C-alpha cells in the first residue's frame, strides 16, 4: 500500500509523524511524507497525485477539529473519498467521536505504539483498499 503522512496546518511538531513514517516504511509500506506547513488543499492534492491508499494526519496544535474534516471533505469533493484518512496528535477523547463522524477512520493518541498503526493498516485498511482497486 502507498501511504501519505501529512503535517497539516501551521503545527511544526513533527517527532511523532516522522516516527510513524519511518516505522511504516520499515514495515514495508511505501511512505511519502509531506513535510511541514501543508494546507488541507495541498495534502488532498498530494494524496491524489501520489495515488495513495491512506493518509495519516498529525496535529498537535489543537486545530484538528477544523483541519481533519477539511481534508476529508476535499478528498471527497475531488472524487477520492475512498482514500482512508487516519490521524494522531494532541486530541482529547471528547473530540474523537466528532472526528470519526466526520469520516476519520481512526485516531491514535499519545502513547500509541507504532505496531497499533501497522495493525490497523493491515487489518482494517488493506482489505478495504484491495476491494476498491
Amino acid at each position, binding site marked *: 500500500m502507498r501511504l501519505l503522512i501529512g503535517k497539516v496546518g501551521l*503545527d511544526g511538531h513533527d517527532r511523532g509523524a*516522522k516516527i510513524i513514517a519511518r516505522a511504516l516504511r520499515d514495515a514495508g509500506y511505501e511512505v511519502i511524507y509531506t513535510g511541514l506547513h501543508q494546507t488541507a488543499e495541498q495534502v488532498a492534492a498530494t494524496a491524489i497525485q501520489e495515488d495513495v491508499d491512506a493518509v495519516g494526519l498529525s496535529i498537535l496544535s489543537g486545530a484538528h477539529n477544523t483541519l481533519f474534516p477539511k481534508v476529508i471533505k476535499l478528498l471527497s469533493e475531488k472524487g477520492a473519498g475512498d482514500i482512508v484518512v487516519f490521524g494522531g496528535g494532541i486530541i482529547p477523547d471528547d473530540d474523537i467521536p466528532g472526528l470519526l463522524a466526520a469520516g476519520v477512520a481512526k485516531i491514535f*493518541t499519545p*502513547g500509541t505504539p507504532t505496531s497499533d498503526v501497522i495493525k490497523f493498516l493491515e487489518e482494517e485498511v488493506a482489505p478495504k483498499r484491495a476491494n476498491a482497486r
Partner: protein
Amino acid sequence: MADSKKPAGGRARWEKETLGPHIEKHPERDVEFSTVSSLPIHRLYSPEDVEGLDFDNDIGWPGEFPYTRGVQPTMYRGRLWTMRMFAGLGAAEETNARFKYLLKQGQTGLSTAFDLPTLMGRDSDSPLAEGEVGKEGVAVSTLRDMEILFDGIPLGEVSTSMTINAPAAVIYAMYLAVAEKQGVPLKKLRGTIQNDIFKEYIAQKEWIYPPEPSVRLIVDTMEFSAKEVPQWNTISISGYHIREAGSTAAQELAFTLADGIGYVQAGIERGLGVDDFAPRLSYFFNSHNDFFEEIAKLRAARRIWARELRGRFGAKDPRSWMLRTHVQTAGCSLTAQQPMNNIVRVAIQALAAVLGGCQSLHTDSMDETLCLPSEQAVTVALRTQQIIAEESGVANTIDPLAGSYFVESLTSEMEKQALSYIRKIDDMGGIIKAIERGFPQREIAEAAYAYQKQVEEGRKTIVGVNKYVAENEEVPIPLLKIPPEVEERQRARLAEVKRTRDGKAALSALHDLTAKARTTENLMPAILDCVRAYCTLQEMGDAMKEVFGEYRETSVF
C-alpha cells in the same frame, strides 16, 4: 599505616569478596542500566571515578569561573529561582486573566505562550490561521492585543518572558510600545524574548525567513537592546525543544551550546564587542525524567559555556561567562494515560532543575497531553515549585550534590560528550553549516526513533503506557476547551483595528520597513514605528519577507 579494622584493597576486593558471591545468588534486575538517553550507568561510583578532577579548576566556587556550582555566590539562599509559569490561551483578555491569577497564586515572573498563527507571523484572520486561533497560546496580531494582554500589569515591576522566535523582533517591539504607553522607561524593563532561530530549524520548526536574514534580525535586537533595554535578555538559547523533538541529553546540551556559540560569532561579526552583548544571552533547558542526568547536564552546561566564552571568544567580563538558564519540565515525558501521574513526574523533574541550579523554572501541568492547562492543573504545578522551595530543604545550601562521586563523574561525562559534538560542528564550519547539512536534525530523528523502539520493546518503561496500564481508563480531570467564538472575536477586533487606524501612516511605515530591510540598518526603530501605527504582525512580517524570502525545509525522516 593500615587500620586493622579497615578493609584494605578497594573496589577489586569488594567485588571479589562481597559483590561477587551476592550476585551469584541474587542477580541484578537487568543486564544493563542506562539513563533515559541510553547513557550507561555503572553499579557504583567511588573516588577513582573522579580522580582526574581538580576541585579549583573543575568544580570551584559558586559565583566564580567556571560556575559549575552555580552562577550566583549565594544561589537560592540569596534569592529563590523565579517561578515563571508559561501561560497563554484564547485572546488577550483570557491570558491577561490567567497572568493575574498566577501572580496572585505566587508566581514571580510572567511567561507568554502565543498561538500558532502568531508564532508563525500570521494574523488571526489569515486563511492559514483557521482553527488555530488561541488554541496553543494567546493570539496577538496588533499592538491593541498586546495592550489588553498586559492591561493592569505594571511592566516596570515584573519581568516577562515571551516565547516567540521568527517574529520575535516585532512582538518585542509591541511590548516596548506598551511600556511606552505605561510611561515605563525602557531601561527599567526586565524580561526575555526566546528569539532563537537556530533551534527552530533544528527542532521547533517555527520559521519564516532563511537563516541569514533571521540572524540579522536577532543581532539587530541584540544591538538595539544593549543600548536601549540593557536589562533585557535578548535570546533564550534553547535546548528544551531539541530535547522534546527526541534528542538525548548530551545532544540537547551540545546542540544548544553550539547554537550559543553561533550567536556569539554572529554578534562579533556585526562588530559588537563580546562583552557588550554576551552578558544578556540566556539559556533554556529541558528537565526530563532521569534525575541525575539532568542535574549533571546543567552543571556541565555552565562549565562548558564559561570556558568557551573566556577561551574561544576572549570575553573579559565575568557576566559574559555566566550561563543563566530557565528550565521547563519535559512535556514529552508526560502521558495521556493516567494523567495524575504527571504531577509526580513534574515534581521529580522540577527537583532536578533546582538541584541543577536553574535561575527560573516552569512546571508543566498534568493535563498538557490533552489540552492547554486548566486553572486547577496549573495551580498544582505552581504549588510543586513552592513546596520544593519552602518545604524540601534543598534550597538551604548551594549545589548540594557537588562532590558526589556519581554526580561529578556524570557531569564530566556529559561535558565530554557535548564537547565531542561541538568539535564536530566546528569542523563542519559552525552551526549554520551543520543545519544546512541536516546534521542535528538527523541525529535527533535517529535518537527519537531509537527511543520509540526501546519503549515498544519494553526496554524502557513508561508507567501507565507500557507497564501498569489501566483497563478502560476514564480521564478524571476537567479539561480546558477554547471555544470557536475566540477566533470570531479576534477577527472582529483585527477588522476594527484596521478600520480605525491611520491607514496612510501604517502603509508608509510598512514601506519604510521594506526599504530599510534592504539595507544593513538596524530594523528595530522601523519596526517600532510600524507597531505604533497599528500595523499587523503579518503586514510587518510580509514587508520583510519581500526582501528576506521564505525558508523551505528539506524533510528528513
